[in-house]
């Protein structure tokens, strides 16, 4: 049995990792829950965002915040463009999965073409900075990612809950035809939402570049965990996604500390399977 300090540290790093999972899950959860489109390309977009951050920061020496300021709006535009295509071809929930899978493979190839399959690391002065609270170490960048995730979750929740566009999106997700009959311009709002989802992929990408080492195949590494987070959190529910991210992050890191790192995936997937079989009406 590991010591209390080790467990505590596992808890802390689990929460921080969970923040990043949440950040990756937001866009997926929104487009699945409110547009009924399952966007596998979301992971690829996030990784593309990470590589762009690396390129702008490591090669062109832009400060990270400037890179973020350039990437996030550009990704918003990408998201809108993606939705234009998906709408034009009347893509359904199931076919969206296949089309965006294809897109993810293409993006993976593009990334590998430009940056090769070698590992890339964006070295910043903050990378090793960490706070020390009692016996626990808290890496500053991961804390920042986690706080950003929390802020975005709350802002998105409020946006969906209180603004006209948010209410219209939720109404259209329930029944697009009826919402349309009441004057909701579902299509225009869908473009906004798709843009926002992609912009969140950009935000996640910036943090991924700052925190971790990059390799093109990482796209697939996140797939299972983030889907688990999205489903456990409830579709279209950013706060739920963040909490689910914490849950998965902590259960993974505690498993790593108690058993072995290699057992970690078992936890998130078992939770996902359990929820799907026992509470399918949640999704």
């Amino acid at each position: 049995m590991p010591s209390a300090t080790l467990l505590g540290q596992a808890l802390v790093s689990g929460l921080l990792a969970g923040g990043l999972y949440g950040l990756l899950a937001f866009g997926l959860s929104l487009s699945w829950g409110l547009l009924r489109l399952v966007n596998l390309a979301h992971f690829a977009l996030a990784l593309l965002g990470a590589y762009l951050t690396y390129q702008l920061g490591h090669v062109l020496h832009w400060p990270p915040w400037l890179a973020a300021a350039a990437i996030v709006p550009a990704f918003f535009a990408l998201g809108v463009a993606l939705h234009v295509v998906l709408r034009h071809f009347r893509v359904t929930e199931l076919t969206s999965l296949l089309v965006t899978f294809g897109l993810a493979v293409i993006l993976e190839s593009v990334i590998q073409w430009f940056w090769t399959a070698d590992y890339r690391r964006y070295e910043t002065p903050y990378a090793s900075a960490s706070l020390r609270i009692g016996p626990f170490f808290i890496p500053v960048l991961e804390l920042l990612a986690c706080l950003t995730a929390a802020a975005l979750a709350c802002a998105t929740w409020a946006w969906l809950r209180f603004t006209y566009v948010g209410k219209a999106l939720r109404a259209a997700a329930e029944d697009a035809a009826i919402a349309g009959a009441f004057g909701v311009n579902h299509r225009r709002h869908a473009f906004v939402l798709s843009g926002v989802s992609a912009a969140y992929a950009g935000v996640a990408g910036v943090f991924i570049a700052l925190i971790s080492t990059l390799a093109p195949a990482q796209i697939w590494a996140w797939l299972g965990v983030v889907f688990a987070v999205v489903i456990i959190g409830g579709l279209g529910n950013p706060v739920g996604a963040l909490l689910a991210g914490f849950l998965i992050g902590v259960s993974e890191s505690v498993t790593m500390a108690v058993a072995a790192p290699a057992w970690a995936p078992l936890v998130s997937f078992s939770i996902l399977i359990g929820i799907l079989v026992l509470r399918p009406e949640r999704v």
Partner: protein
Amino acid sequence: MSERWRLIAGVLGTGVALAGLPLLGLPAFYESVLYLVFHWIALATSWSLLSGYAGYFSFGHGAFFGAGVYTTTTLAAMYGVPFLATLPVAASVAALLSAGIGVVVFRVKRLRGELFGLLTLAITFVLGTIVLNTRLDGGPGVYLSNVPLPRLVASPTGTFYLLALGLATVTVAGACLVTRARLGLGLYAIHDDEDVAEVEGVPTFAYKLVAFALSAAVAGVAGGIHAMYVSYVTVGDTFSITVPLYVVLMSVLGGARHWLGPAVGATVITASLYAFTGGEQALLGRALVALILIAAILVVPEGIVPTVLARVRRARAQPREAATTPAPALPRVEGAALECHDVWKAFGGIEALRGVSLTVGRGEIVGLVGPNGSGKTTLINVISGHYAIDRGRITLGATVLSERPAHRIAGLGVSRTYQIPRPFAHGSALDNVALAATFGAARRTPREARAEAHAWLEFTGLARRAAALPHELNLHERKFLELARALAGRPRVILLDEVLSGLNPGEIASAISLLREIRARGVAILFVEHVMRAVLELSDRVVVLNEGEVIAAGTPHEAMRAPRVVDVYLGKGHVVA
């Protein structure tokens, strides 16, 4: 020789002809590429058995493939079992695994579509993690280089080619057989509307389980062969995203609902992947395949094979099936009395049926009326077995119906129609009726069922529309299609849920004479209806439901004049003292 056996003979003949290829002494590289083509044909075709035909999109094919890989690896590399002897075991392990998953998952109604896909993907990763952390692998991977390979021909690559070719041939021939047998028809019906399929008599649970197990067994054998082919297996490569995504891609590209579609898709994709080999070209090849996938799904969402077949048919201007075979005489059926005794059904706190008792005798028409929400449709749903009742008993003649699954009830001779017609969207009018005839009370082969379906279409005046797809029919025709489908099950009792609503007076008149004819054949009819003229004209007796209780029963005029009925329909003030 029927079309089915001609096709299967064609597949087997092609397989035998291709088996001669190693004799040509091709370079090993070509044999390897061809091995991969047939490897993927077997995997993609087996995937489509459940996922293509029944629409249960699985992303878990990698789990069954992986189960096969590690069964062969463990038995051959660690216990010295001869390689070929491990393959049946690999098939069994994979089939048992899928059946175990299916027994749990197929009971949960909502686990369809993308949820089933995610669930199966998650199972793949769980299985991978377990293999990685146990003695089966342990982390570093396992070598099979010491396992002796039996030589079918001189070269090892030729041997692998023949093994994969054999598996692919058997799988494609099997898929062809399935699509033309009861199993395939049932799976297609599940794809379009699982609830209706069950009520029409398709044993949906058993069929899904069988399709899942067959599909996994083939994947298991393919895995076993592939373990030997790569001769060094790792968890990372085996339980990766590659297998599930490639089989989905290949099947969807070729046409997942057609027996030959996945084979075509697999050939196109494997061949184009190998057109680009080495370094940057491979990268380009992968991107190109992804691009093909996107284009194919956006432009030919049904897949290559069905799209091409449809084009060819249209070019020949041939009807989908000539409706010229003379309709056989309609079979007479032995009616039976339906009895509901003190039936209760609650949904959460809402009691939809509160002790309903009624009988419908042989050759009797009983009208079931009542305000909206009074429990009429719920009663039909519990009689047909769609919902289980909480208390009470429903019998047909001497047989107890309640507590049997819906498909068994259909088999005992209970048919129903839906208020809003629910035809199987991908089948023609004839296919729809033939399905009910195949799975209804009398057991018939699909071919006999088709002949009989013609007769029922003629009976309901739809013979001209036999080849039409449901979305091409108007409301009146779809209502009559519902009726034809219900009759094709050779029911002893038929439950009609508002067959007349939305029809014009002329159509109602023809429907009424149709119902009289049905009754004359000895069938007991329970019909829910709001069109009062028809109720009064047709019913021998009328039962009035309100808030889940029978408030009046008797001849049409007695029942409709009962004070409580007038009260419910018009309000208290109108009751004549």
